Structures are given as C-alpha cells and as structure tokens.
C-alpha cells in the first residue's frame, strides 16, 4: 500500500487511467443495452459517450504529448495571462454595452447582453492564449 502511495504518477499513467476508465464506461454502456431499454437508452448513451471521450482523450493525448507533461510552467503562465487579458477586454466590452444602452444607442435584452459577453469572454480567452502560445512567452 505504501509503495502504491509513493509511486510517481507519470504522464503515461494518466493516459492509461483515461483509457481504462473509458473502456470500463464503454463496456458498462454496452451491458446496459443488452435488455433493450424502453426509455430510449439515455443511460447507455451517456455512458458510451463519456467512455469514448475518455478513451479518445487518453489515446490522442498520448500520441500528441508522449511522455512529456500536457502542462508545464510556460503553458500555465500563458493560460493565466490569457485569461487576465480576456477579463480586461470583457470588462471594456461590457462597459461599452452599458454606455450604448444608457445612451439609448441600442436596445439590448438581458439575454442578448449576457450571450454577447459569454461569447466575447470565451473567444478572447482562446485568442489571447493562442497568440501567447505562438509567441512563446507572455513577455
């Protein structure tokens, strides 16, 4: 037990766990299908989808990253700075939306304002992270 606790978890172990969990979920999902479910098979569908996602993530990431980690200090730094830049841009965007609405330049529903903010936050975070990732560093 102590040996298991002290065992170093390498990237290979992490990918292996994903493949094992994915395989178990797929087998479980198939087993749930044996007596054909009358409710349309929601549970087997969820199990099979999750299992496939785990399995594919394990195999594809292993092929992509090999025995090197998925994240390191550079990617974590880029991730954090990308989110910070995105936060500032989103704040600016929401301020503009507020002013436009206040000045009655546009008429926005709550749904539209929230939707636009979510899109700007998500896309800008991805764009900043992609830009910084290609640049190599945040400096």
């Amino acid at each position, binding site marked *: 037990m102590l040996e298991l606790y002290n065992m170093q978890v390498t990237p290979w172990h992490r990918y292996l766990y994903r493949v094992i969990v994915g395989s178990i979920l797929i087998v479980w999902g198939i087993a749930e299908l044996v007596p054909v479910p009358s409710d349309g098979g929601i549970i087997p569908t969820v199990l099979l989808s999750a299992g496939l996602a785990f399995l594919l993530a394990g195999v594809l990431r292993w092929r992509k*990253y*090999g*025995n*090197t*980690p*998925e*994240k*390191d*200090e*550079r*990617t974590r730094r880029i991730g954090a700075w990308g989110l910070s830049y995105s936060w500032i841009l989103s704040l600016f965007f929401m301020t503009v939306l507020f002013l436009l609405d206040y000045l009655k330049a546009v008429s926005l529903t709550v749904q539209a304002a929230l939707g636009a903010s979510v899109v700007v936050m998500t896309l800008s975070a991805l764009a900043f992270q992609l830009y910084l990732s290609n*640049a*190599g*560093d945040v*400096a």
Partner: protein
Amino acid sequence: MQTKIKEYRAALGLTQEELAARVRVRRETIVFLEKGKYNPSLRLAHGVAEVLGTTVDALFSFEDEEGGGAGGGIP
C-alpha cells in the same frame, strides 16, 4: 536572452523531447527556450543546467537587455 542549450544538448546527443521529459516540461517549451523566446523560472533553468551537466550562468546570457550582462547584479 541568448542560450547555449542547443549546443550542450547536441553535445550530449539528447533530443528536444528527451530533454523535455527529463526536466518535465513540454517539448515546445524546450523549443522556445533554445530560441531565447521564453524566460524560464529559476527552478527550470537549474533543472536544465543540471541535466546538461553545466551551470545556469553558462547556459543563459542577457547581454542585449537592460541591466547589463550575465555578470551584472548587485553593485
């Protein structure tokens, strides 16, 4: 920032991927380090120097940047 990581790595016959695995970073990080586009943490710089059998001072130099060369520091 200029580095001599590539020269030391080649002298040891290590690939970028092997070096990355030994210092536990992604291969891309080694690529950017060798190009001088990434300022590593002291911990990573020390780790790379240790794997390559040299010192941080021998690997990195900052001659073109404000603050002087590698030897510059506390007056």
